[in-house]
């Protein structure tokens, strides 16, 4: 997170002068406090990370243990009640963080790498390579995400791993589009021309000259996209195509709640968990986008 938070902040000379002038006028509020939403987002993510790491120490019960009263309402013993198999919902929600958070990162990193490589290649080489890659991206774009993901996940078989693959397949095109547009604008820049005149090869130019300049917007897109990835993945689990029982995964826990909608606590709390994580990532992503250079922000927006 620190890397992505810093990237768009690259102190240009003008900004430095400006902020120095302002500092003389009034004591400067530390940066995080001027961005309350991002601060809130960071703390929520931080809290969930702590929960994910220390779940076995924090959770009052084993999330798979089926020894309590079935469908008991929230009480002092079971803060979030128990589910249809007599498991402690609170412990299951805490353990759910251990599945969703790491997978969200894996998903976004995988989509980012695939998208960036394909987009970079398309933008740098142009011609038919560009055409093939971008038409493929358009096709995936035209599909409503969940329908394609549904078909892939169903075809590969209902498993968490396959749901992850399906989400990656659906989400790489936005990175490819962004990276391609960034590469196209960088391709004719002086420093790239200079590098080429010095005899640098295509991959070398992409990696050493273009990559640092594209990293900021791509990371912002990743921060904005991670929430969507979580929503899509938990949606697939909700439909029974992701995590399989008895795994404590938030989406499939909401699905259990849908079976017992009379007992609201079964589905309510895992859903709130998804909401808080996604909301926190969106707070961070939104703030980063506002801080980004307006010229590149336009490309990230849609």
């Amino acid at each position, binding site marked *: 997170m620190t890397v992505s938070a810093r990237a768009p902040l690259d102190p240009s000379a003008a900004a430095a002068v400006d902020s120095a002038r302002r500092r003389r006028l009034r004591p400067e509020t530390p940066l995080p406090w001027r961005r309350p939403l991002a601060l809130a987002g960071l703390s929520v993510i931080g809290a969930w990370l702590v929960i994910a790491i220390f779940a076995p120490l924090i959770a009052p019960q084993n999330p798979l243990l089926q020894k309590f009263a079935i469908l008991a309402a929230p009480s002092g013993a079971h803060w979030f009640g128990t589910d249809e198999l007599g498991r402690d919902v609170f412990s299951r929600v805490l353990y759910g963080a251990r599945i969703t958070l790491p997978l969200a990162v894996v998903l976004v990193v995988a989509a980012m790498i695939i998208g960036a490589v394909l987009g970079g290649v398309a933008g740098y080489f142009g011609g038919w390579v560009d055409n093939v890659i971008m038409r493929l991206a358009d096709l995936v774009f035209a599909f*409503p995400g969940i329908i394609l993901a549904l078909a892939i996940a169903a075809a590969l078989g209902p498993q968490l791993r396959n749901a992850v693959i399906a989400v990656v397949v659906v989400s790489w095109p936005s990175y490819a589009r962004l990276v391609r547009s960034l590469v196209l604008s960088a391709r004719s820049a002086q420093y790239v021309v200079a590098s080429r005149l010095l005899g640098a090869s295509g991959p070398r130019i992409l990696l050493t000259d273009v990559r640092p300049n594209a990293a900021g917007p791509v990371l912002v897109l990743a921060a904005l996209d991670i929430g969507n990835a979580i929503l899509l993945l938990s949606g697939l689990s909700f439909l029974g195509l992701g995590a399989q029982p008895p795994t404590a995964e938030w989406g499939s826990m*909401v699905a259990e709640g849908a079976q017992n909608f009379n007992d609201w606590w079964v589905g309510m709390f895992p859903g709130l968990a998804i909401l808080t994580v996604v909301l926190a990532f*969106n707070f961070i992503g*939104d703030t980063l986008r506002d801080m980004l250079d307006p010229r590149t922000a336009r490309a990230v927006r849609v």
Partner: protein
Amino acid sequence: MVLLVGITLVAFVVTHLVPGDPAAANLGQRAIGDPAAVQAFRHEYGLDRPLPVQYLLYLKSLLHGNLGISEQSHRPVLTDLAQYVPATIELALFAIVLSMAIGVGLGILAAVCRDRWPDQVIRVISLGGVSMPIFWVALVAFYLLFFKLGWLPGGGRLDPAQNSPIHLTGMFTIDAAVHGQWTLFWSALRHLVLPGLVLAIFTVGMLTRFTRASMLEIMGNDYVRAARLKGLPEHIVVLRHVLRPALISIITVAGVAFGNLLSGTVLVENIFSWPGVGQYAYHSAINLDLPAIMGVSLFVALVYIVVNLIVDLLYGVIDPRIRLS
């Protein structure tokens, strides 16, 4: 056209190259043990031919308007789609109109009150909208508005005792209104509200954020300052000089939002037992009903093309310069 063929190809490759076995998914337990039955099934649906041949045969029958036979319902996919599509279109249209009205309204308010408290509140609302798991919202809304309060019906398109209105478009509200069946119209509308609201939540957030951003971008222009300086009332400046140019990019996003709504229908229709394409897509996907999946993909591609066309036409309505060229 290229898109249509491309979509069929992608859907075809995705569904056929993966290791799932449609015979195993669609035949009963006993039939799977019987090699002859499996063979007959594969032959009936052409699964024993080489893949490129299968694809070309599919395209050929497509040209004759034949989408194949669903492996689950044993009816032509086209008949299935004709039955389910109107319900989904009705739901999605209701949701997009709702989210345009709310989203653009909130976006204007946020842009006008930039950085003051209404802007902050709206920002949190819109971010909340795009952060909610739609299946969970559906469940909460179902529990509160139907189960606890009983304000709205919980599922289906009409009350169980009611018959569908005289068929015209297949969209119950429109059919009932056209034929003056007002009790049916009221019932259909009430059934539409809950799934429609839930479906709209994500797109409201999306459109709010985007409306605000594009309004602010245009407010920075000199001609807006000029309009203010010559003494035009603020609401005319906002609506005529800022909103109108902003609408160009807003409807572009609304087109994208419509695609998002279609995604949402898969989850929402399942929860509210809304008999539409979303449910059909879900059932065909988990049963690996290949002709049906291909049919849904085609429908989706068609919607994408039609929506883009409408967006292009609207550009001309909003901006006369685009109309002339």
